[in-house]
C-alpha cells in the first residue's frame, strides 16, 4: 500500500470531478452529476482515512517525532539557480488532520445537499463548484510552498465567491459575494506582499526551507531583521502582512465583515466553507508558519493573540443580539476562530509553551464537526420553515426530532460541557491562555460563557419558546439525505474530543500531553452551565424578560444588534472618504488627463485623416489637376531658380 498515490488521488479526484461535471454540459443528467460528486468525495474520504492511518500509526513517526514528508515535488518556475517555485505535496500532522476534516465535512455537505438543494435548477454547477472548492482547499493544506499555497488560497476565494453568489438572481447574494471577494482580496494583497518580502529575504518559498532559514541565525534571518521600516524589522512586517491575509480569510476583526454576509449562499455551503474549512485557512496559515512566528517574531504572535481574543469577544457580543439564525452562527464562527487564533497567539516555542498550538489545532478539528453540524441543522430548519428569522420558529422539537437532538448535542459541544468534544479543546485553549497570557484568558473565559448563552438562546428560540403545534407533521420524514449527515456529524461532535490529540499534533512533532485539571475546569464549565441556565430562563417559554433586558441594556443592545456599526463605518470610509477624496479625483484625472490625452491623439488623427481622405476622391480629373498644377508650380520654381 503506497499512501503517496492516495494523496495524489485525494487531490486529483475532486479536480477531475469538477472538470467532469463542469464541462459535460447538458448531456449529463442531474442525478449523474450528484452521484459523481458524492461518490468522488466518499472515495477521497476513504483515501484520506487510509492516509491518516498510514501516517499516524505506520510511517509518520520517526523516533517518536512526526516529521513532515514531501510526497511529490517538481520544479515549476525557476527564478535563479538557488530560487524556484516548486509544486508538491507535503504530509505532516496538521495537513493530514486538515485532510480528514475537509474530506469528511465536504462529504457530509455533499450528501446533505442532495436533500437540501433538491429541485434546484443549477444543481450541476453547484456540485461542480463544491468539487472545485474541495480541490482547492485540499491543495491549500497540502502545499509545500508558500507560493503554491497562495495559488490555492486564491482558488478557494474564487470558489467561495461562486458559491456565495450561487443564487445570482438575488441582489443581496451578489452584493455579499462581491463583498467577500473584495475584502479577502484586499487582505490577500497584504499576504502577497508578505510572501514577496519573505521570499526576497530568505531566497526561498519552500515552507520547510523557509522555516529552517528564518528560525536559525544566518544570512537570511539577518537580512530580514537587519533592515527595517517604520520602526519594525522587515521580518515583522512580512509576518504581519502574511497574517493580514490569514485574518482576511479567517474573518478576524476588522476584516470580519464579509463572513456574516456570506450567509447569503446556500446553507450547506455556509457549513462547508464559512464554518468548517475555508475560514480556518488563516489559522492554518499561522500554524504552518508557527515556528517563524514563535521563534523570530514573538511580538507579532502576541498581536495575533490580542486580535484573536478581541474578535472572539466582540463577535460573541454581536451574536447575542442577532435574530437571523445563520447570522448568529456566523458570528459564533468568527468568535470560535478568534479562540483558535489567540490559542496560537499565546503559545510559544519549546517544551511547555507550545500547548496553545495543539489546543488551537484541536479546537479547529472539533469546531469543524460541531459547527458544520450546527449549520446543517440550521439548514434543515430553514428548509422546513422557509425563513431565517428566529421569530418564525419555535416549538419545532416534536416535528423535527433528529434535528433537535443533534442540534442540542452540537450546542452542548460548543458550550464546552463535558464530555462533548468542545469541552476538551476549549479547556486546552483556556489552560494554554492561563499559562501564556492571563488577560487573554479572562477574555476567553467570559467569551465562552457568552458562547453558551447565545447558542442556547438560539436552541431555545428554535425548538422551544412557542407551544408545540400538535398537528404539525414530521418535517423530517423521508429526508434521509439530510438526516444521515446530521447523525454522522453528531457522532463526530460528541466523540472527537476523546482523541488524544496532543499525541499526534504538536508544534515540534513530539507528543505532548493536554492535561485536564479538574479544578481548573470547574470555572469554565460552571460559567457555561450558567449561560445555559440564563438562556433557558429567558427563552424557554415565551415571556417578557428578553424585552426587559433589551430595554435595560438600551443603546448597548442596539449597537450589538447593528453589529457595532462596523459595516456603517466601512461604508462611510469607502463611500464618503475614499470615493470622494481619492476615487473621484483619480477618476477625474484618469478621464480627463490620461484618457483625454490618448483620446485627443486619436481624435486628432481621425480628424486629420478625415480631412485628408477627401483628396482621395476617386475622381480621375481631380487627380490630373493636382498633377498638372504641381508640374506647373515646379516649372515656375525651376524658372525662378535658373533664369
Amino acid at each position, binding site marked *: 500500500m503506497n499512501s503517496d498515490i492516495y494523496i495524489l488521488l485525494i487531490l486529483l479526484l475532486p479536480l477531475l470531478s469538477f472538470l467532469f461535471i463542469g464541462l459535460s454540459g447538458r448531456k449529463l443528467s442531474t442525478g449523474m452529476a450528484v452521484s459523481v460528486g458524492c461518490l468522488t468525495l466518499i472515495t477521497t474520504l476513504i483515501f484520506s482515512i487510509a492516509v491518516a492511518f498510514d501516517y499516524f500509526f505506520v510511517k509518520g513517526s520517526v523516533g517518536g517525532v512526526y516529521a513532515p514528508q514531501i510526497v511529490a515535488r517538481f520544479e515549476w518556475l525557476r527564478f535563479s539557480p538557488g530560487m524556484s517555485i516548486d509544486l508538491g505535496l507535503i504530509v505532516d500532522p496538521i495537513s493530514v488532520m486538515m485532510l480528514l476534516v475537509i474530506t469528511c465535512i465536504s462529504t457530509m455537505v455533499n450528501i446533505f445537499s442532495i436533500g437540501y438543494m433538491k429541485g434546484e435548477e443549477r444543481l450541476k454547477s453547484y456540485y461542480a463548484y463544491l468539487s472545485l472548492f474541495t480541490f482547492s482547499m485540499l491543495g491549500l493544506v497540502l502545499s509545500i510552498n508558500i507560493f503554491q499555497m497562495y495559488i490555492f488560497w486564491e482558488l478557494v476565494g474564487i470558489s467561495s465567491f461562486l458559491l456565495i453568489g450561487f443564487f445570482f438572481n438575488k441582489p443581496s447574494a451578489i452584493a455579499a459575494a462581491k463583498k467577500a471577494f473584495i475584502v479577502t482580496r484586499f487582505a490577500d494583497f497584504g499576504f502577497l506582499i508578505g510572501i514577496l518580502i519573505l521570499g526576497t529575504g530568505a531566497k526561498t518559498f519552500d515552507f520547510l526551507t523557509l522555516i529552517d532559514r528564518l528560525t536559525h541565525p544566518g544570512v537570511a534571518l539577518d537580512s530580514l531583521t537587519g533592515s527595517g521600516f517604520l520602526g519594525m524589522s522587515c521580518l515583522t512586517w512580512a509576518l504581519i502582512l502574511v497574517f493580514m491575509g490569514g485574518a482576511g480569510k479567517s474573518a478576524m476583526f476588522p476584516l470580519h465583515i464579509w463572513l456574516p454576509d456570506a450567509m447569503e449562499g446556500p446553507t450547506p455551503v455556509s457549513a462547508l466553507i464559512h464554518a468548517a474549512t475555508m475560514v480556518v485557512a488563516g489559522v492554518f496559515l499561522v500554524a504552518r508558519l508557527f515556528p517563524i512566528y514563535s521563534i523570530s517574531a514573538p511580538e507579532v504572535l502576541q498581536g495575533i493573540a490580542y486580535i484573536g481574543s478581541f474578535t472572539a469577544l466582540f463577535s460573541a457580543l454581536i451574536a447575542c443580539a442577532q435574530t437571523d439564525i445563520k447570522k448568529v452562527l456566523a458570528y459564533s464562527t468568527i468568535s470560535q476562530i478568534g479562540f483558535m487564533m489567540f490559542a496560537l497567539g499565546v503559545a510559544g516555542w519549546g517544551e511547555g509553551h507550545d500547548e496553545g498550538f495543539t489546543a488551537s489545532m484541536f479546537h479547529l478539528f472539533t469546531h469543524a464537526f460541531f459547527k458544520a453540524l450546527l449549520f446543517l441543522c440550521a439548514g434543515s430548519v430553514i428548509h422546513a420553515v422557509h425563513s431565517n428569522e428566529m421569530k418564525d420558529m419555535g416549538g419545532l422539537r416534536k416535528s423535527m426530532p433528529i434535528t433537535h437532538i443533534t442540534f442540542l448535542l452540537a450546542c452542548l459541544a460548543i458550550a464546552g460541557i463535558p464530555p462533548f468534544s468542545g469541552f476538551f479543546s476549549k479547556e486546552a485553549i483556556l489552560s494554554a491562555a492561563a499559562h501564556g497570557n492571563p488577560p487573554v484568558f479572562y477574555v476567553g473565559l467570559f467569551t465562552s460563557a457568552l458562547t453558551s448563552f447565545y447558542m442556547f438562546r438560539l436552541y431555545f428560540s428554535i425548538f422551544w419558546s412557542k407551544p408545540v403545534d400538535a398537528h404539525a407533521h414530521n418535517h423530517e420524514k423521508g429526508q434521509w439525505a439530510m438526516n444521515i449527515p446530521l447523525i454522522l456529524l453528531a457522532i463526530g461532535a460528541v466523540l472527537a474530543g476523546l482523541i488524544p490529540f496532543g499525541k499526534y499534533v504538536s508544534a515540534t512533532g513530539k507528543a505532548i500531553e493536554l492535561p485536564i485539571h479538574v479544578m481548573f475546569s470547574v470555572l469554565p464549565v460552571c460559567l457555561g452551565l450558567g449561560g445555559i441556565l440564563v438562556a433557558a430562563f429567558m427563552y424557554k417559554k415565551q415571556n417578557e424578560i428578553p424585552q426587559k433586558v433589551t430595554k435595560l441594556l438600551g443603546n448597548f443592545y442596539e449597537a450589538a444588534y447593528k453589529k457595532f456599526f462596523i459595516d456603517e463605518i466601512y461604508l462611510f470610509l469607502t463611500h464618503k472618504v475614499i470615493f470622494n477624496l481619492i476615487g473621484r479625483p483619480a477618476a477625474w484625472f484618469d478621464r480627463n488627463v490620461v484618457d483625454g490625452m490618448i483620446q485627443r491623439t486619436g481624435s486628432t488623427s481621425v480628424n486629420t485623416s478625415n480631412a485628408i*481622405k477627401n483628396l482621395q*476622391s*476617386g*475622381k*480621375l*480629373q481631380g487627380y*490630373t*489637376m493636382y498633377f*498638372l498644377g504641381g508640374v506647373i508650380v515646379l516649372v515656375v520654381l525651376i524658372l525662378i531658380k535658373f533664369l
Partner: protein
Amino acid sequence: MEQVPLAHMLILSTILFFIGIYGFFTRRNMITMLMSTELILNSVNINFVAFNRYLYPHQLEGIFFTLFIIAVAASEVSLAVAIIINIYRKFKTIDIEETDTMKY
C-alpha cells in the same frame, strides 16, 4: 516652308495641347476624354515633326518617335474603348463623376 517660323508651329501645338488638357479636365464623358487625349498626343506629334524638320533635318528621330506615338496611341485607344465598354456594362454609364468607387 521657311516663311513660317518654328515658334508659330510650337505655339500651335501648345494651344492644341492645352485645349486637350482643358477638355480632359472638364469633360464628364469618358469617350470625349479619350478624344482630348488624342488631341494631346497629336500636339506632341506636331512638336516632334516640327523640331525634326526645322532644327535637325539630317536625322529621322523625330519621325520615328511620331511613328511610335501613333502606334502607342492606336493600341491605347483600342484598350480604352474596351475598358469603357466594360465600365458601361457594369455601371450603365460612362460618366466619370459617377464611376468613382476607387476611393477611400
